[in-house]
């Protein structure tokens, strides 16, 4: 049988998640295996065998495997990357350490807070005697003796990877190229990362940081990919292995070898992709994905049915300039600890009990009250049905912790204190969502909230209510959402060129050759990856700003006609004025605009997804039990508990009710109604708006159309 299945794999801290899509039947299979930290490839292999068994499939059925790995993320968090040697322009070896001289936010008044230490110590940061001018002219030719000296030092010090970042190297790469050749000649086995290839944009510290992270993660990434590919080859024969990027696109394993930095934080990107995809299924084109786990709360904004991609961000306090899906994390999760400060204010976080010792109710030595303890004390969690009963929860320990650290100091009852903890953590998350929506010029009232991760569905409806959002969606298999995102990801390659032109200089004649040149590279790359030309989509964009500003907005450039024309550019500039006005409360078409960089994104479309639709039922849903659950402004109310796997399309539940599944619990407060759609999504809306809800279901055909494109 021809390959007709796709497999997505996301390796997390505890579990390796797998999602298998059968494109012929529209069926989706998913499972989890334990992550094998010493050798994650082993857990991946076990998982593949397991899911093939579940789906009764053979390796030959697989068209490709899309893999999101935390190998780089973990190496960065644990500082387990390579010993890197850095070559800079003479006089600038300390740029990496000086950074922007600014101490972190938390160090505004706290003298003990530091930036993370540079990934390359000073004695491995060496200088090449050379200098490029701002216009790309050679101010001082490269003195090769200085380079030889540096490389020899690297040799003595057993450097495992080399990063090269020269001032204005993005304007004229000739010196960076020369140095790479010399490195490869003397140290042929040491991988080299060039700044001009990884992040060719101005601002030397941020560019150096990105280059160094790539070098730092290259050897460990290469080793992992080699080991995984060898194992896959041995067990299953040749398989197309794709690696998830933080941009939300996939790349081939071969391309990934030189772009290790692009793989960091790809898990949340997968979550955002899946959010957008489900939004398209339910007809919600404006949607905020909220992934709440044990320690963090990730927020992904979807506007116009696709995740937003930004051109820079940071990992672990280190800035990076690469395309990344705009997912922001805040330190709020089930493990966040509640505490009362000296002034009598109730706070939740930023400290977290994590998974070890975990919340007080785990009974594993945690003594401080956490958000999970508050949820348990309020009846929102089932002590006997947590993580599929793998962990037994202890309500008495949760209550004792809340009593001691919150209720007593604030002279409240335990229930009031637990409710207070939820309100404060909710406020924190509401602020996180606002920062990532309203602050970017979007009105949350026009958005739906899609909740996933273990704790997301517990808080989702109350968050949405606070923000006046349209409705809440809890998708099926929400606990393997990142893997689902990975398997549906397109192949993607991003290119950027800094041009620095004034509005008068930015003519079609000047810009088109730059775009065409990037496009030639991009199409060749995708052809090499066996993408057929009709599956290729190329997008152009320009980074624009008002003359004198330092920050750009990325604005699309039309490329659907054979030639770029000046009217196209005028359109782009008009769109810039409009966008600026929306985001920053003013825009002025009379002002001059500068064109800083041109960007090109090349996409090799993954097959369109056709999810199977479940049959509707006419029978009402039956609760599996009842218990008392606390709701704000109501107190404890006798509440119906439903089992998620028993729910079918057509079921309608009124709040207050709880919907339990092995890895999550959905809270439906009073005055809300939950319905189930044909894809198994829970859709939760205010009861008053149920009429509007009915009319929105009529949009289903349109949603299908969106999915097909």
């Amino acid at each position, binding site marked *: 049988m021809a390959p007709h299945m796709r497999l997505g794999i996301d390796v997390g801290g505890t579990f390796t998640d797998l999602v298998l899509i059968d494109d012929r039947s529209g069926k989706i299979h998913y499972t989890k295996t334990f992550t094998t930290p010493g050798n994650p490839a082993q857990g991946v292999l076990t998982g593949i065998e397991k899911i093939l068994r579940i789906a009764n499939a053979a390796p030959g059925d697989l068209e490709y495997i899309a893999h999101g790995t935390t190998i780089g993320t973990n190496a960065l968090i644990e500082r387990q990357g390579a010993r890197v040697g850095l070559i800079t322009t003479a006089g600038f070896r300390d740029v990496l350490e000086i950074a922007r001289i600014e101490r972190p936010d938390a160090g505004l008044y706290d003298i003990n807070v530091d930036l993370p230490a540079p990934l390359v110590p000073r004695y491995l940061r060496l200088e090449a005697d050379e200098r490029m001018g701002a216009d790309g002219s050679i*101010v001082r030719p490269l003195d090769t003796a200085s380079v030889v000296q540096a490389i020899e030092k690297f040799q003595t010090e057993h450097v495992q990877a080399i990063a090269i970042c020269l001032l204005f190297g993005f304007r004229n790469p000739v010196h960076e190229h020369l140095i790479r050749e010399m490195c490869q000649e003397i140290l042929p086995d040491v991988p080299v990362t060039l700044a001009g290839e990884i992040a060719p944009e101005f601002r030397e510290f941020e560019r150096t940081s990105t280059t160094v992270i790539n070098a730092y993660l290259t050897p460990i990434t290469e080793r992992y990919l080699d080991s995984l590919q060898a194992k896959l080859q041995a067990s299953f024969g040749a398989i197309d292995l794709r690696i998830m990027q933080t941009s939300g696109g996939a790349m081939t394993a071969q391309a990934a070898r030189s772009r290790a930095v692009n793989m960091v934080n790809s898990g949340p990107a997968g979550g955002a992709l899946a959010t957008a995809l489900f939004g398209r299924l339910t007809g919600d084109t404006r949607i905020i994905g909220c992934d709440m786990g044990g320690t963090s709360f990730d927020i992904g904004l979807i506007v116009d049915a696709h995740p937003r991609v930004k051109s820079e961000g940071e990992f672990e306090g280190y800035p990076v300039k690469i395309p990344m899906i705009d997912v922001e994390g805040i330190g709020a999760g089930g493990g966040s600890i509640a505490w009362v400060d000296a*002034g009598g204010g109730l706070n939740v976080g930023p400290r977290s009990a994590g998974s070890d010792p975990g919340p007080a109710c785990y009974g594993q030595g945690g003594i401080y009250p956490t958000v999970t303890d508050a949820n348990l004390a309020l009846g929102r969690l089932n002590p006997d049905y947590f993580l599929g009963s793998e962990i037994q929860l202890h309500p008495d320990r949760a209550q004792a912790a809340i009593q001691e650290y919150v209720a007593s100091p604030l002279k409240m009852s335990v229930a009031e204190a637990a409710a207070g903890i939820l309100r404060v953590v909710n406020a924190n998350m509401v602020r996180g969502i606002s920062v990532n929506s309203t602050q970017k010029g979007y009105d949350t009232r026009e958005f739906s909230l899609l909740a996933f991760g273990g704790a997301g569905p517990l808080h989702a409806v109350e968050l949405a209510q606070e923000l006046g959002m349209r409705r809440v969606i809890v998708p099926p298999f929400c606990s393997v959402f990142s893997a689902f995102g990975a398997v549906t990801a397109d192949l993607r390659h991003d290119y950027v060129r800094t041009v620095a032109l004034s509005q008068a200089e930015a003519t079609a004649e000047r810009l088109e050759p730059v775009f065409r040149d990037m496009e030639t590279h991009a199409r060749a790359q995708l052809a090499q990856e066996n993408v057929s030309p009709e599956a290729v989509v190329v997008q152009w964009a320009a980074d624009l700003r008002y003359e004198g500003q330092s920050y750009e907005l990325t604005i699309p450039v039309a490329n659907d006609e054979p030639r770029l024309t000046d009217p196209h550019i005028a359109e782009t500039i008009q769109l810039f004025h409009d966008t600026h006005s929306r985001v920053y409360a003013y825009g002025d078409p009379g002002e001059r605009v500068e064109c800083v960089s041109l960007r090109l994104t090349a996409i090799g479309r993954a097959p369109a997804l056709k999810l199977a639709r479940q049959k509707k039922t006419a029978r009402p849903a039956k609760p599996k039990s009842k218990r008392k659950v606390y709701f704000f402004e109501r107190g404890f109310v006798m509440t119906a508990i439903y089992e998620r796997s028993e729910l079918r399309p057509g079921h309608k539940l009124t709040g207050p009710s709880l919907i339990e599944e092995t890895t999550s619990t959905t809270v439906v407060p009073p005055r809300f109604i939950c319905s189930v759609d044909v894809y198994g999504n829970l859709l939760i809306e205010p009861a008053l708006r149920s009429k509007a809800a009915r009319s929105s279901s009529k949009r289903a055909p349109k949603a299908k159309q969106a999915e097909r494109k």
Partner: protein
Amino acid sequence: MKYRADAVTMQVIRYAMEQVADEMGYTLVRTARSTVIKEIKDISCAVFDRAGNTIAQAHHAPMLLTGFELGMRALRRHYSDDELDDGDVIIFNDPYAGGQHVMDLVTFAPVKLKGKLVGFVGSIAHHTDMGGAAPGGTAGGLTEIYLEGLRMPFIKLYKRGQEDRELFGIIANNIRVPDKTLGDIRAQASANFVGVRRVKEIVTKYTPAVTHACLEKLLNVSEGRVRAGLVALPDGDYTGEDWVDDDGVTDDPIHLQVNIHKRGDSATIDFDGTAKQVRGNVNAPLATVYAAVYYALIAIVDPHVPPNSGCYRPFTIRAEEGTIVNPNMPGAVGARTNTVQKITEAVFRALAPAVPKRVMAGSHGNITNCGFSGYHPVTGKRFVYIDIQGGGAGARPTKDGRDGQDSHLARFKNTPVEAVELEYPVRIERYELIPDSGGAGKYRGALALRRDIRVLIDDVSWARYGDRQRFAPFGVFGGHNGAKGQFVLNPGTSQERVMKSKGLDKLKAGDVVSLRLPGAGGYGNPQDRDPEAVRRDVRDGKVSRVQALRDYGIEITDDESV
């Protein structure tokens, strides 16, 4: 019925207000035109209650954060509620009316709901040029406030949302780079408009009664935390001192003394023993003096308290008129940062014996500020390039100082070398740490920064101020002093010349200005330093073998250094 605020709603409203301040800061930085705002981020934004108490602040420079206090008090005296309309933006920069220096333009906007005043928002930003004797305004040695630039009392720059074109015209006529500065002022107004819109939404949602009750509680919570922190501090009278090198006019050193009288849950701070007002512009207006005292005491007492006006209530500050910490008109104040950073350092020094685990050693202790100005060879337009640098941060009770990082009041960013060279006719030839500039100690003081700037055209003016070029950053508890700073013109050539720390000079094409900032002091006896840490510093070239042997008694024989 009076609404009784609960701890939870209070926290919810607090987060919402902090988000407003952050959003204002984001808008200002993204839309501004001059590097001093968009790269260096010498700005702050805040939200106030209707009485003018600071409620929430964007996380930028502490000097500007706490500096809103006096300006706001003056504003409340200046206008009645009825004189403030929706859409108004009021600007001012008068150091003698609660301002900082004339370069720092403060804007306030009232938030009115159904005709009633419910709060204010404000932003403050350092501008590239405000006219006056020196391009960029950052020259040392100016002797009167009139030389420092256009000084504005409270003025409504926007009335009911409408820009006052005449006032913009007056400003434009008096400054050197109106394109940039007017763009920056509009960016500040945008930030205020965004803030007003958001505060209205919040107050509408929670009602004015609930909002005000919660904000009052929030102020009380912060006050309570600071008072609790003070109770834990031993009662006593503490004195700390420091010196400013000179005032840029004469070479006389200037004495600063901070006396802290701590009793129970409050403290009174005075400056008895501090020098009289000087002719040069290192006099510090009250707003910055308050900021320095508040900053240092909060850092020591409770660095994570929600920063608002409640934090300041336990402190009484007394600064005698006619002294360097409360000058009389027309004293010049432009280079005040040299003085106020020393106040911060003196507070740490005063309290070091009482709370040795909460203080740090002396830091670079100034804000090195240069303004280069001339006519751009390509555009023919006037340019003003402001370069602000940090320095070395002092060693701490359990850690070395942060090499080449800023500390205390500033919290600025540097300007990327590439951003500078893309915009101005200069070339930066070096930006690096200076070995051996950190004071030895059990924990080493931070290394200083060196930045060498070559100007590529003739007729560039170089306005500057810096300090700690005569009085070194102090070590504590046996730690050694850090290196002093120095400005050198054309180093390594026959024209090499050490320049004054504060001044205004002309440069010609090819001249190199080498800024060597002060380092920082060490903490504890160097003999107690972990020998591994000394070896690591030598291997990294941060400490020479000579210093390792002399200060730490460790001889490095094998080839470990670079």
